């Protein structure tokens, strides 16, 4: 048996022994394990699962051991992911620090910063949020204006961020700030880490079309930020910002952490709601065709993901393919959401009214929530701009 096969077997055994049964069901929103100072476990099992994974180093399986990671190779990480998926194990921790900021800090942070922040992420002690967008700077992110003045031993930060997901729940924010107005806009940005408990930081929640209120506007009013909280160099924050975005887009294109998982596949739902005729075909031939188009696209999406991984492992990465993933997967997810609604008909028009089945209502609410997939992390139009320029080399 190769060492990878052995790793797979051991991993499977360990997971089946250590992942409580309740942590193998599709996760509901109120069952998510968030870390942070205000950490509160949704259940005893959830806490057990989190602690076992933390102690194993598998909260961040690919990070170095000294920061609480698992030090696993690319192949081992893939195996762990596959085994967790096949057992249906829930993620042991949700955190933007873990998903987006951590990987960038690994690349750009100082040793002290990594020790301090990465460790707290893997231990689930600090929860992060992302301070990029501003009221005047969305797609044109580099046009941001939140100002950080150099005051000797600290920066003085003034301005505001918007669409900051879970800013009201987070402990720290990784933030893009303007440190130079004399140069081209990308060249005057720095990457700052700010404790949300600092004096002068306030948040106010914003309600979404899905009825949830996940994001906030975040205000900075004369906030003092110690110099050691600068990542990389002054005015070089754009580079770090792009690294974060790379991970963010990969994350969004994987989709599975975003919303409550539906409890049956779109195919099963179609069979159940629309029914089959005497030939075993879906009664509505147009929906049958739409469903097939979606399932085929989904199959291709999954194969693309596998292809990226296999290329990377073979040392022959194709730079174009990953650039297409966010656009392709989020568009397909929205087509799937529309298909869910088409299948449900007049049974799929509410998430508020409890007279309707919970599983239907979840689908409807996901439909509304998922409208943000083609906006967050760089809109679809911006993705197409990036593909056109970087993958296809089309002129400015």
């Amino acid at each position, binding site marked *: 048996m190769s060492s990878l096969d052995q790793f797979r077997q051991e991993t499977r055994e360990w997971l089946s022994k250590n992942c409580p049964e309740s942590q193998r069901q599709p996760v509901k929103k109120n069952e998510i394990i968030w870390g942070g100072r205000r950490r509160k476990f949704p259940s005893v099992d959830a806490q057990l699962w989190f602690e076992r994974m933390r102690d194993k180093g598998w909260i961040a399986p690919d990070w170095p051991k000294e920061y609480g990671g698992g030090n696993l190779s690319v192949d081992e990480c893939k195996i762990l992911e596959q085994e967790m998926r096949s057992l249906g194990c829930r993620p042991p921790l949700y955190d933007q620090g873990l998903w987006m900021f951590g990987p960038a800090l690994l690349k750009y942070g100082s040793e002290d910063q990594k020790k301090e922040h990465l460790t707290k992420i893997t231990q689930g002690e600090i929860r992060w949020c992302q301070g990029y967008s501003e009221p005047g700077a969305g797609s044109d992110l580099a046009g941001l204006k939140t100002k950080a003045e150099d005051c000797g031993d600290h920066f003085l930060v003034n301005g505001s961020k918007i669409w900051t997901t879970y800013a009201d729940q987070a402990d720290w924010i990784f933030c893009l700030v303007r440190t130079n107005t004399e140069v081209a806009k990308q060249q005057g940005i720095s990457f700052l880490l700010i404790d949300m408990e600092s004096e002068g930081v306030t948040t106010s929640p914003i309600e979404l079309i899905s009825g949830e209120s996940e994001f906030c506007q975040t205000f900075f009013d004369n906030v003092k930020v110690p110099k050691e909280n600068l990542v990389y160099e002054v005015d070089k924050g754009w580079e770090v910002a792009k690294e974060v975005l790379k991970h963010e887009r990969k994350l969004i294109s994987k989709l599975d952490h975003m919303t409550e998982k539906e409890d049956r596949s779109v195919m099963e739902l179609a069979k159940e709601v629309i029914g089959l005729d005497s030939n075993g075909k*879906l009664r509505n031939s147009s929906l049958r065709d739409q469903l097939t188009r979606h399932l*085929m696209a989904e199959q291709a*999406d999954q194969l693309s993901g596998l*292809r990226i991984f296999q290329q990377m492992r073979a040392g022959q990465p194709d730079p174009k393919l990953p650039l*297409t993933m966010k656009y392709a997967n989020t568009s397909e997810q929205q087509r799937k959401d529309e298909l869910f609604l088409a299948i449900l008909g007049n049974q799929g028009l509410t998430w508020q009214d409890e007279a309707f089945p919970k599983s239907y209502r979840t689908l409807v609410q996901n439909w509304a929530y998922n409208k943000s997939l083609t906006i967050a992390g760089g809109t679809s139009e911006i993705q197409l*701009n990036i593909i056109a320029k970087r993958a296809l080399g*089309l002129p400015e």
Partner: protein
Amino acid sequence: MNMVLNEEQRLLKDTIQDFLSTNAPVTAFRKLRDTQDNQGYSTELWRHLCELGIAAIVMPEEHGGLGFGYLGLGAVLEECGKNLTASPLLASVVLGASALELAGNETQQSLLDEVASGSLTLALAIDEHSHFDPLQTRTSLTENDSGFTLNGHKVFVLDGHTADRLIVVTRSRGEAGSRDGLSLVMLDSQTPGVKIDRHQLMDGRNVASIQFEQVSLPADALLGELHNGFAVIHTLIDRAAICVAAEMLGSAQEVFDRTLEYLKEREQFGVKIGSFQALQHRCAQMLCQLEHCRSAVVGALAALDKGSRGVSVQASTAKALANDCLQHISNEAVQMHGGMGVTDELDIGLFLKRSRVCNQIFGDSIYHRDRFATLMGY
């Protein structure tokens, strides 16, 4: 399931790429078309390609197979698609040799050596209607004392007028539409009672319609079991759909690359037309579609090599996505070339026309979406 080419497969791809771009570029195909060449492909080119071993890529090893697998064959077909190379690879090897390999007895399979060397060519006569649908086969095969009698009419037979032997899908019992009662036979194309007419389709390639009138066949003309040909046909559909999709992928990539080049070179309003966002976004979407299609095709080729159980579903996905992808990209290519796009001087139109013919080979997208849904049980 591995989707990345290994060292040998990459070498094979490079060799074929070099060979075809020197010996069989699109201009060579244009010449065949313009001279209305009787054969429809260059015999010499086919001989060379067979010397390079491409007809033997997926054959069983005892018949000279090279062990590059379908992933390797797919890479070759992709190159053929890029160059619009006309050759018997599809008809004689992917369809004909596959049928022999799947259904033939030892004597029949001994022909595989000749197919691999190019000295014998095969064609598969399967279609009878406007659309691919083998279950609807009506061409009849009746048993008699000395063997069989064959009657009926086949259309859209690839390389039907040049092949040495024909493999014919027939109905030996039951009603059109039924799985039971399908049988395959193989016969010499010179057999009395066989009337072959070549047709000119818009892609300038080889197709024929074939009339069978009271054709007497010996008992050993039967390929595989009488009445039980469906399983063989089912596997043939998988292989053919995936291989045609691989060729189409190559054509789609090529016509897309040519369009991008044009966008970077043509100027209007004092700027390159490739700087217009309206065109950039459409190109970016085409890349997404192309990569999707590539994943489906390469995944399906890998599934064939692995003998995966879900290969039929993947085959239908690959063909449906390839049909839609090449159709869309070839349309966009014409549009983005402006007036030049509708001239015969440019090759773009050749890809456009080939795309529509390929759509119909072993099933258009509607056929394959229906097949997918049926296989999935809805």
